[in-house]
């Protein structure tokens, strides 16, 4: 809407008159040079010269000093901005005849527009009002956040799921180095779920204080049960035991007649919040797509060969889940293709090989808890009764074994196209040590003192034998940590390099002992 300065100067030249300052009620426009016009011209030139000398537009300062109380904005505590910066631009502005930027010492902007005297709103230069402390006020910020929260709650009520059902999460776990890592991640995801939640944690080897203290931090409603067997070392056996632990949890759902949607949240998986919104749509049993992040234990030549082959053959993306045809009906299942990894899969937990998922992971399925109840009125006939399975005689590989008719599974997440959770298995060695509850007690000794002040430059003199022992203990701890770091998911070469350089030293030390 406002044209450039060029256009303005064009129009000024067109109107063929010197526009006096802000010319609202000066009647100089259009008429010839009268003494008043000459006077204003001289004054204007004088002001320009003064500005040139001073180096800034002093008209604003004078205006502020003389007219601020009279101006319509001059309330106490507020002041217009006086830009003392950008001087060259100001000088240029004051020297040229651009109409609107002429100094208006002479014109207090109180004159009303045109002939209408009743208007409060005036045309002309106004001050820019800035309050004395133009920074956010923490009380206001909190109030605003509460308003936003209320608005979002209302949005959820209107557009979100009506009548949300309780989510029952079944998690098999056991105490190990990475348990805190995995369980904290899962716990935080569950704490963010906006629906009612019941968390059934089945622990292999019986309930422990470690797990219990972790669960207590969540503030969620948890059912913590122990399972008598210990978690075995091989992946095969582990999967079998986990299946049994899950069945145990399902039996609890049945006994306590818990009402809601059962989902299997393995502690090492990563769930997105959309998953919990999506599973509310299930009627009886549903399936979601699981992203499989199968990684190799290290960048050995063996596994790099496997990877190259995989890339050459253009394998489909590693997603497990329902497969649909064009009319959005379930026609089959996408299963992880383990052929390239045949013979190279990890058998034991700390193997330096790819950890493979099962054909169909439990975590990709959700059930309506009424499927598991003894007598539910409208339970469909294609569901087996839970009591008939005991998990020992037959292999329960996936929840599909609960169904007589696997085609009744509902595909969720826009028919399996959305990946709502990711499967990832990262574990440390079974015998890797970690401080109980990750509390270091007694505190670690100082092995290498810091060289900065206030520490003294010379380390405190320790007796020589104590030094030897401390160094050995230190390397042992590092040994355990380095082993664990090797089986970490990130294949950063630096860390691998580090571990390998430590390795020969450590192995040398070990051989010494």
């Amino acid at each position, binding site marked *: 809407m406002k044209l450039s300065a060029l256009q303005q100067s064009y129009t000024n030249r067109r109107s063929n008159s010197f526009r006096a300052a802000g010319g609202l009620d000066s009647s100089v426009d259009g008429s010839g040079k009268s003494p008043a016009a000459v006077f204003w011209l001289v004054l204007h030139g004088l002001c320009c010269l003064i500005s040139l000398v001073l180096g800034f*537009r002093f008209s604003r300062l004078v205006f502020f000093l003389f007219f601020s109380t009279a101006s319509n904005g001059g309330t106490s505590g507020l002041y217009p*901005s006086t830009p003392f910066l950008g001087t060259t631009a*100001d000088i240029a502005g004051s020297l040229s005849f651009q109409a609107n930027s002429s100094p208006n010492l002479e014109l207090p902007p109180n004159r009303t527009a045109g002939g209408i005297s009743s208007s409060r709103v005036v045309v002309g230069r*106004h001050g820019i009002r800035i309050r004395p402390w133009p920074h956010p006020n923490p009380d206001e910020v909190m109030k605003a956040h509460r*308003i936003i929260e209320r*608005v979002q709650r209302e949005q959820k009520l209107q557009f979100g799921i009506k009548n949300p059902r309780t989510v029952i999460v079944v998690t098999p776990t056991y105490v190990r180095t990475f348990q805190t890592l995995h369980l904290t991640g899962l716990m935080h995801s569950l704490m963010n779920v906006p629906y009612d939640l019941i968390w059934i944690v089945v622990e292999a080897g019986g309930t422990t204080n470690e797990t219990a203290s972790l669960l207590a931090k969540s503030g969620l409603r948890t059912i913590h049960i122990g399972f008598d067997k210990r978690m075995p070392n091989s992946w095969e056996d582990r999967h079998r035991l986990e299946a049994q632990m899950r069945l145990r949890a399902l039996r609890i759902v049945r006994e306590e007649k818990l009402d809601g949607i059962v989902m299997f949240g393995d502690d090492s998986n990563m769930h997105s919040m959309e998953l919990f919104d999506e599973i509310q749509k299930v009627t009886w049993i549903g399936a979601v797509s699981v992203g499989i992040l199968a990684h190799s234990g290290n960048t050995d030549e063996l596994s790099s060969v496997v990877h190259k082959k995989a890339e050459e053959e253009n394998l489909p993306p590693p997603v497990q889940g329902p497969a649909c045809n064009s009319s959005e009906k379930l026609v089959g299942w996408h299963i992880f293709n383990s052929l390239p990894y045949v013979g190279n899969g990890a058998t034991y937990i700390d193997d330096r090989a790819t950890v493979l998922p099962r054909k169909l992971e439990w975590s990709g399925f959700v059930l309506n808890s009424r499927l598991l109840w003894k007598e539910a009125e409208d339970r469909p006939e294609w569901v087996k009764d839970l009591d008939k399975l005991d998990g020992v005689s037959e292999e329960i590989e996936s929840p599909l074994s609960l169904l007589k008719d696997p085609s009744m599974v509902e595909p969720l997440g826009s028919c399996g196209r959305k990946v709502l959770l990711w499967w990832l298995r990262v574990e440390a060695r079974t015998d890797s040590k970690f401080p109980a509850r990750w509390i270091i007690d007694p505190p670690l000794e100082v092995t290498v003192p810091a060289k900065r002040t206030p520490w003294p430059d010379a380390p405190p003199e320790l007796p020589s034998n104590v030094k030897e022992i401390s160094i050995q203990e230190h390397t042992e701890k590092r040994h355990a940590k380095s082993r664990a770091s090797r089986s970490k998911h990130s294949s950063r070469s630096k860390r691998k390099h580090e571990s390998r350089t430590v390795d020969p030293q450590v192995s040398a030390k070990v051989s010494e002992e």
Partner: protein
Amino acid sequence: MEFWRWVFCVLLLIASSLRVGAEQLRRGQRTERISGSAGDVLEDNPVGRLKVFVYELPSKYNKKILQKDPRCLTHMFAAEIFMHRFLLSSPVRTLNPEEADWFYTPVYTTCDLTPNGLPLPFKSPRMMRSAIQLISSNWPYWNRTEGADHFFVVPHDFGACFHYQEEKAIERGILHLLQRATLVQTFGQRNHVCLKEGSITIPPYAPPQKMQSHLIPPDTPRSIFVYFRGLFYDVGNDPEGGYYARGARAAVWENFKDNPLFDISTEHPMTYYEDMQRAVFCLCPLGWAPWSPRLVEGVIFGCIPVIIADDIVLPFADAIPWEEIGVFVAEEDVPNLDTILTSIPPEVILRKQRLLANPSMKQAMLFPQPAQPGDAFHQILNGLARKLPHDRNIYLKPGEKILNWTAGPVGDLKPW
């Protein structure tokens, strides 16, 4: 027996009215009825309530201008062109001028564009004058009332004052020949020369398809508190600030540039429309003129407009209760904007959002092609219909003349 039948009928009546009331309550949970000072008129149908005669002007007044520069169809002043097209095919149009209540003159005064796309208003007064001379000499209806039953669409910055600079516009005043006609304009400010008594304020044109194509799912949570994208200082024309927006936009920037609640900047993001749908409040401060398309965008996207423009007259002000829908902040209160906005009770905010969610509200702000019931075209016609019937005294006695055809700046009298 008769008695019982009457009782039965009365009971039925009561039951049906209760059911209607309940349905309104259910519908009203998510949206609310809009009642302005003119009543619940947003859904009125103007067909049958008025008749409009469209003058056939030579194409140099409309078609040729548009052919010269088709950008006129997409800028914010495109309402004049679309109004013409709507009236040509509307059922309110009549081909018999004797039975017409209103007369429309299709002259595109805002279609002379600079290379940048901004309209130059310098020839507009002459164009309008020439059009009026044409209709007054070829048809008797102008002279009958000296234009009191004619209406013109003048969507430019300051309406029929035909200038983009406020001081110049005020000096010129409304074109003298239009002082008896009804003006349909976007500019509206109380006690201002360029707003005539009885004018109809309309929203600026915003492209409906473009806005519809940027809708996001309504369950996306609104996480931005205050949103604004645009200039704070017009560096080309007013580098220091103080003139542009009467210093209000600069005040917004200086006070809130580091406030995390205010998502304000001068960028032109691709996700402008999507961001508005994720915001609770959208600032609509004045610029060089008090109106802005942000109001329309805010209404369409459900973002509560925060109007910072003293004495502004908003579109269809008699039909839409803007006080209940938007938040009005005086320009002198801009430094306390955060206090003002956070002290609004959440129930009030939710109510405003419900009013904004009303589909008739959104429709009333748009100029869709082809026209749909309840849109801005129909609201204009409703406004014109509300001014009927014409007063008897607008019809001049024979020989009586009120307008002075030589009034106004000398440059305007040159033929176009």
